[in-house]
């Protein structure tokens, strides 16, 4: 029950901030709204039992990207006073956005997402390791232990760092390397492009 309350609050904050981003007259204010929406989203991640992601969200989006945006705003001082903040296709944009929202909402609501009804006992940031034996895993603090139908303790699932780390190093190794390269390229690119 509290969770739902939390959710509603966070959703309200996030969406409100998003609207703020879109409707604010000055670019700086919309940037601030953006930061707020990022924090709201971080909150949602917490609700979704993915603490790590929430922290990452805060660290990267709030700490880095919004700072970057603010820097960009500072560097491109141009007074947009007086002019309308939106261009001439705002009506169509709005209509399109609403229509798309309607569609996605409809899909979201009706689609059968094959949710998994297994009883999941969320521990505080449970940890699932690909350990050799169930026993070993059980002892790890925060492990998420669930019973399957047969009653045998099977899976402990959580969005924890170790699992993610292990996954990055095994299944997604290539993606991880590519991401590293992309970051490097972006870094160089940004420097070269924005250099004086």
């Amino acid at each position: 029950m509290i969770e739902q309350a939390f959710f509603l609050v966070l959703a309200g904050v996030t969406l409100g901030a998003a609207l703020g981003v879109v409707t604010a007259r000055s670019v700086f204010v919309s940037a601030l709204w953006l930061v707020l929406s990022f924090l709201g989203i971080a909150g949602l991640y917490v609700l979704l039992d993915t603490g790590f992601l929430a922290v990452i969200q805060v660290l990267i989006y709030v700490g880095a990207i919004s700072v970057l945006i603010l820097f960009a705003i500072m560097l491109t001082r141009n007074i947009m006073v007086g002019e309308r903040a939106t261009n001439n296709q705002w009506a169509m944009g709005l209509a399109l956005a609403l229509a798309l929202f309607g569609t996605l909402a409809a899909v979201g609501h009706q689609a059968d997402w094959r949710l998994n009804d297994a009883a999941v006992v969320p521990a505080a940031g449970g940890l699932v390791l690909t350990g050799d034996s169930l026993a070993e895993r059980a002892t790890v603090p925060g492990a998420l232990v669930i019973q399957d139908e047969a009653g045998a303790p099977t899976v402990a699932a959580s969005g924890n760092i170790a699992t993610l780390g292990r996954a990055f190093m095994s299944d997604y190794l290539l993606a991880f390397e590519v991401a590293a390269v992309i970051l490097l390229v972006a870094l160089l690119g940004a420097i070269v492009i924005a250099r004086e």
Partner: protein
Amino acid sequence: MNPQDGLSPPAATALRAALDQALARVLPEQLAGPTADVLWWALLGTLILAVIQVSMLYATWLERKAVGRIQNRLGANRVGKFGLLQPIADMVKMLTKEDITPSGAHRWVYNLAPILVVPPAILVFAVIPVGAGLVATDLSVGFLFFIAVSSTVVIPIVMAGWGSRNKYALIGAMRAVAQIVSYEIPQVLSVIGVLLMAGTLSTQGIISSQGVAVPPYGSFPGVWFVLVQPVAFVIFMLATVAEIERSPFDMPEAESEIIAGYHTEYSGIKFGMFYLSLYFLTIAAACLGTILFLGGWQAPLAALSFIPGWVWFSGKTLLLVLFFMWLRGTLPRLRVDQMMGFCWKILVPLALANLMVAGLVGKLAKQADASPLFTLAGFTLANLVLVAVAVWLLVAWRSRVGGPAVGLRPPTVAEGAA
């Protein structure tokens, strides 16, 4: 402090139980649980706030005394015995001073900035374990949480700088942001070495790994990470000093150049807020330092473990705070470009090197299942190498930086100077 994890002190559990029963009687069943939680968390929050508020006040006092002493003067001694009431006086001054809002300032952003500066500084303490069980919440991503929250302090700074519509404020804000964001990287990189050793991100975990031989990396009892990775400790401390804009790195509100930096236009309680958050972050940084490198509430020797954990923790933190103040009193301010250069050209490479070394030696030790003592020897050897690298980097950097800072010197003829 969370009763569920069974680690919090008995008093806390007893209090929590009493609270539950009280509420159970008063509220319907499904409401009782949640409200109990809320109340319990509120209680905890106020407790923590009180503790850090008091320590912040007396940190200011200590600062003025220490710096005074360093500068061979007495420091605050007028108000109360040894100036002990000076902080109160400052607080009262802050509160009563006229709160001037510049006409051009952006109403919302200008006013919101000081308000938003404080929460991150306070939130950080949620994960700091004062004692064995004395931690607000032991997040599995504890350290990362700390870093994330401390990095959000940047936003209000920018808001302050921009909101006050003052050129100097804006430039100060820009410098502060640049500095904070830049130094965040060496800070985190240097700590990763430690995390490798600790095997977990949660603060309690890190502290316990420095004491009890639990984590898979086979660390050894009673060895604080400062001994295992001194270079990382040095990098961390320097980065942290820059992170909290103190002493050698306090360009943002360098009086001589840009008046008071981003909080130029602020006065009264708004300025107080900034001042407050500054000190909170200083204390938090000190705490983090103790957690990561000085073994937190762990006693140096098993024998001394009778003394309660929080005493050890407070002492070590006080030690680090004094270190900051010491720095402030003695070192001259760095130039902006030197500061940035120092960060990117010395700290980051060194931190990477340290991380590589830590990872390598740790892996080798684990591979070879070496005894803790042997591992310690390996680390010391590696650290010697790191020190050599650090010295070489410093020398190379100093020789080049000796002249006028790169980029600021007048354009040479080749570059088509007039």
